[in-house]
Every structure is written in C-alpha cells, then in structure tokens.
C-alpha cells in the first residue's frame, strides 16, 4: 500500500460517492451549529419540507450574540435576541441538542465541541463558521461551511467536496520561553501569507508541534484558516487520546479501546508525500505582534513597524500604507513602544483553560496600567469559567484589574455589546485584525494570551520573555 497523508486517510474513509470529475459526496460525522449562520438553513429545510438526516450528528449553541455580563437579564439588543431565539426555536422544532444560554456547557462553538468530546479523532466536523479548522487538532478533517452547506449537511449528512492539495508545515526545534502556539500560527502566516494555504489542507508536524498541548494545537489549527487553508490538522498521539478520554460524548468501555486502536492510525505514513512543505525553526520563533489589518502583517515583538517605502511591489506597498493609516502607526516605530487602550483575552483561538492560566501567571501580583480603559477576560465556555474559578484564576484577574466575564465570542467580532470605539487600540488574543473587526474604526493587534496580559500591565506591548 502506498504511504498516505493524514488528510488522504481522513478523506478516503468518508467518501460516499465520487463523480467522474472528482466531485465527491463526503460523509459528515459531526455538525456544529450556532445562531448566526443557521437561521436561513432551517428556513430552507422548512420550505422544502425536509428533515435533518441524522439528528444525533448535530450539536448547537449560541455564542456570537450572547452578552458576557448580566446574563440573567437576557439579551438587550432586540435583533441579537431574535437570532438567538430563532436558534432555540429551530432546535426545539427539529429536535436538535442545544446548550442554551443558561446551560453551564454553553460557550464558543469551537471550544465546546472538543470539551464535550463531540469532536473526536478521525471524524469529519463541519460548522457554519470558518474557524471550524480548530477541530483538526484532534486528527479530524474539519472546516467551515456557508449557510447553503449548513442546509445541505442538515438534509443529507453529506457535503459535495473536491479534494484539497496537501501542505505540511514542519516546525522542528524547541520553543523558547514565552513562545506559544499563537506565535507559531502568526509566524507561519507571516511566512506564507494569508493566501499561502489557499486550496490546501495543512498538517502541522514536527517536534515543536508534538510538544504542544491540545489547547495549543487547537490554537494553531484555529488560525489555519487565516493562512487561507480550509483545514488544519495534527496527527493523533497520546496527548490527543488523554484529552478525549472520559468526555461526555466520547466512547467508553470496550468501545473506547476499539476507538483508540483505530485512532492510532491517524497520522501521515512514513514517506507520505505532500504537495508542498514549509519548514520553520521553532527555536527561532519569537513572540509575535501584528501591526496591520491582515494577520500576515506581523512582526516579532523586538522588531519595528515595517516601512512601506522598502516594499517594491506597488500593490503590497499600497496595502501597507492603507493599513498604517488605519492603524494610526508610523513606519519604523519599535513595537514595544506602541501603547494600547483595551485588552481582550478570549475567542475560540485563546480562551481555553491553559490560555487563562498563562495569562493569569503573567498578571499575578501585578496591576493593569492606569492608561488601560478596559481589560477583558472572556472564558471560552461555562465549564472553562468554572474550572478557572475553581483554580482561583478569576481572583487573580480581578485583583489585577481585569474584568471577568461570561463565555461567548465577545470582543472577537463585537456582535454583542463588547467592542472598541473608533481609534481605540487593542491587544487581542483573537484571530482577525481586519478593519472594524472589533468595532468600527477599532485597531486590533493579535498576540498570545501572555503577551496580551503583559501589555495590560505595562500599558504598551512588551516582550513577555523579559517581563
């Protein structure tokens, strides 16, 4: 048998039917739903008189619009409320399992899937949300879909797909102190660009990746979409299996043993060929900070804001100039001299327990700088929140001057009340620094949780390695 990549194995085991041109009907094991991209899909089902194909494949949760304070009072914004109510009604009507806003299991869809064991190795996982790539951390084939596809998966349990090309991102070498999965992700995007992964499924491999926890692998795969790839993945190993064990939706008893035996095969075979290979030296990666309005506009913390005058490509130069104008930055400013107004620790990229622990370790015994208007910590789920409180992390944050909130997407995209005002600058652990992403006119710098916490204390970006 020829050596196969992990992607090829996952693909092959889910093929239902292939047309002569390669268009494939791919079986979907797990379908996650949230309130923003599903209403029109349910409406479509109703109009066509169709029913969900396999109810047990679906799991729903509201996350984008939920408030992170005073939840007992419900959602103030009537339009947000309508969207969440619509999800509740649709799930009730069609019989889909949903974690409602009052449920401790509620949280960001990409945090709760793995947390519940609803995301398992070897699965195909889809959701009407681009950051579904997160779930690939489990050796799963996971990607975001649009609303028409949400309807298609609900009705048929399948998707029409074309095979992607494969890219291996190989990160060898040990990571330095203060360097995280987020910094690997940003360094990769800095290297290949936001379109570098377009058309590819990326497998992250190498010693630096193997050493990451599941939380770190999720952060990395989460950002695969920002490199243009639909899917990111990491091979299964003991770390994966230990994480999954005992979770509510995971198999147990004899079936667990059977599953583990099956999952052990979820890695690229020795000698398997990728269409493209990108190598990075893990030891050379430094803490990263974005300076512009695309995740590829990123430098190391000890670097300066780049100078468009040195860019020869005129389209790129124009993009840089526009980004600097929007971000209110001067070329050649050292990154560690840039002051911030707000700090956001949260989002499906960095809101898991390990992220909160790392940020709390930096914050412990220190005070948020007086120049900071707001420093928010938003756990990824009710269960993450509870665990953090059991560990006393909430006290550390509150005593340092951070606000401790209820779970949701929050200031990652500012669909709820948490947002930047025009011109405000934010150190954010989220994944997108697009114009207006965190509020119209808001300026986002993407960083790791450690770097965000350190910026909150210092009032400006600092090198967490020297902090």
């Amino acid at each position, binding site marked *: 048998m020829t050596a196969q990549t992990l992607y090829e194995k996952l693909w092959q085991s889910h093929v*239902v*039917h292939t047309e002569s*041109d390669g268009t494939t*009907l791919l*079986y979907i094991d797990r379908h996650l739903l949230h309130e*923003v*991209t599903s*209403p*029109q899909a349910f*409406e479509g089902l109703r109009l*066509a008189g*169709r029913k969900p*194909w396999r109810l*047990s494949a679906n799991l729903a949760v509201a996350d984008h*619009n939920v408030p992170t304070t005073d939840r007992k009072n419900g959602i103030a*914004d009537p*339009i*947000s409320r*309508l*969207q969440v109510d619509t999800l509740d009604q649709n799930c009730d009507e069609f019989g889909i399992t949903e974690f409602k806003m009052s449920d401790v299991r509620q949280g960001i869809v990409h945090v709760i899937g793995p947390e519940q064991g609803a995301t*398992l190795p*070897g*699965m195909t996982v889809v959701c*009407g*949300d*681009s950051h579904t790539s997160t779930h690939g951390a489990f050796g799963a084939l996971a990607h*975001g*879909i*649009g*609303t*028409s*596809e949400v*309807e*298609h998966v609900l*009705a*048929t*349990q*399948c998707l*029409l797909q*074309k095979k992607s090309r494969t890219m291996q991102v190989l990160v060898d070498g040990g990571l330095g102190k203060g360097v995280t999965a987020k910094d690997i992700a940003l360094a990769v995007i800095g290297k290949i660009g*936001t*379109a570098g992964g*377009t058309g590819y499924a990326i497998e992250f491999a190498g010693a630096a990746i193997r050493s990451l926890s599941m939380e770190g692998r999720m952060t990395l795969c989460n950002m695969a979409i920002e490199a*243009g790839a*639909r899917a990111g993945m990491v091979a299964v190993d003991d770390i994966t299996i230990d994480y999954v064990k005992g979770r509510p939706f*995971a198999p147990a008893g004899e*079936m667990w043993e*059977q*599953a583990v035996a099956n999952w052990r095969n979820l890695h690229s075979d020795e000698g398997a060929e990728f269409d493209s290979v990108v190598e990075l030296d893990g030891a050379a990666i430094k803490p990263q900070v974005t300076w512009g309005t695309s995740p590829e506009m990123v430098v190391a913390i000890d670097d300066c804001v780049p100078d468009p005058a040195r860019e020869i490509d005129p*389209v790129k130069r*124009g*993009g840089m100039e526009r980004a600097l104008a929007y971000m209110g930055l001067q070329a050649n400013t050292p990154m560690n001299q840039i002051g911030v107004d707000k700090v956001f620790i949260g989002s499906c990229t960095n809101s898991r327990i390990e992220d909160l622990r790392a940020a709390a370790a930096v914050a412990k015994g220190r005070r948020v700088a007086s120049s900071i208007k707001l420093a928010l910590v938003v756990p990824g789920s009710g269960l993450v929140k509870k665990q953090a409180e059991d560990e006393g992390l909430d006290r550390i944050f509150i005593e340092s001057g951070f606000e401790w909130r209820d779970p949701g997407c929050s200031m990652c*995209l500012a*669909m709820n009340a948490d947002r930047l005002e025009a011109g405000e600058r934010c150190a954010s652990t989220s994944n*997108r620094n*697009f*114009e*207006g*992403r965190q509020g*119209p006119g808001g300026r986002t710098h993407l960083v790791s949780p450690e770097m965000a916490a350190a910026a909150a204390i210092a009032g400006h970006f600092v090198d967490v390695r020297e902090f």
Partner: protein
Amino acid sequence: MDKFTILDGLVAPLDRPNVDTDAIIPKQFLKSIKRSGFGPNLFDEWRYLDHGEPGMDNSGRPLNPDFVLNQARYQGAEILVARENFGCGSSREHAPWALLDYGFRAVIAPSFADIFFNNCFKNGILPIVLGAAEVDQLFSETFAEEGYRLTVDLEAQSVSTPNGLVFNFAVDPFRKYCLLNGLDDIGLTLQHADKIRAYEERRRQSEPWVFN
C-alpha cells in the same frame, strides 16, 4: 437559484487586494435571519460616511463620494473586477447574498478565498479567476472607458471585451452544470440517498462511536 448562462453587464472596478467578508458585509448585518435585503449594506463601511446598523433607512445616509460604487458611471454594474484573495475571512454567506442583492452576478479576480468562492456558486454568482495580467488589463480598460461592459459566457467559459479580446477561464464541470441549470445541490445529493445509507451501515460496523 437563478440560471447563469450569458451575462452582458456593466463593469465596476474594486482596486484593492484582500477584500475581506467583513468589508463586503459588516458583521452587524449578520444578525438578520433572512437571506435577502443585504444589497444596500454591501461594502457599508466604505460606501457610507456614517455608521450603518440593521433596520436603518439607507436612502438618506451620507455617501462616501470617493468610493468607487458611488460614482455615477458604475451604477447598475453587474460584474465586479477585483484583486487577489477576494472574499477572504469568514464563511458568512451573507457576502455573496449582499453582492447578489446589489446586482452583481459575476466577480472577476486573480484569486479568491476558498469558502467565499464556494458560496458564490451556491447562490448563482459566478466567480471567475483570470491571470493577474488579464485582470490588470480589465482594470485599465474599465477605468479608461466609461460604460465599459463585458460579456461572460459560462457555456463557452469566456469573458469577452468590447475590443474583441476573449479571455478563457476554468470552471469545475459539476459547478458549471448546476449553475447553467439553476440546480439545487440538496436535491441532487438526495438522489444518492441509498448510497448514503449503505455508507452509514458500513461505518456503524467499523466505527460505531461516531453514531453515539
């Protein structure tokens, strides 16, 4: 879904790379539970000088005179010419819905983000990839000639300029077939219902935990 066969339409140029879905339709408009009505908010932050919110009457809002789609010569455009990595960012299908509702049926660019590209086909918009030099040429001709139109022929997979140039583009045969016939994917897939059931039966044997 409307069929897409031949489109002869006015062209509008959007001369910047990496136009993301947040720019195409800002997130506050994602709160709608409908599929239509997004056209007036297409490129909202670039198009208007004030901040748009859902439910606003857009007709009285101050327009940004510098934004290309606000120029008189591009009113009624049906073909958008854009730069690389058009549609990057989120998976929101509101982006193609907004383009369609505004009146665009085709977008021409050197490259597209993957999910956006897919979503276009599902909504009767044809995304066309041409070479960077060809797109450059379309930009300069659009800027140079007022009322510049292109003819897109999906059957022939060609884009023809008024000056008689013809550019060919590639399109996936299955997607082409669906678009030419205005076919709904779900109906097509359900013709394979037996195969889906047989597949599930096999997987239930080999990986029963998936069906828990």
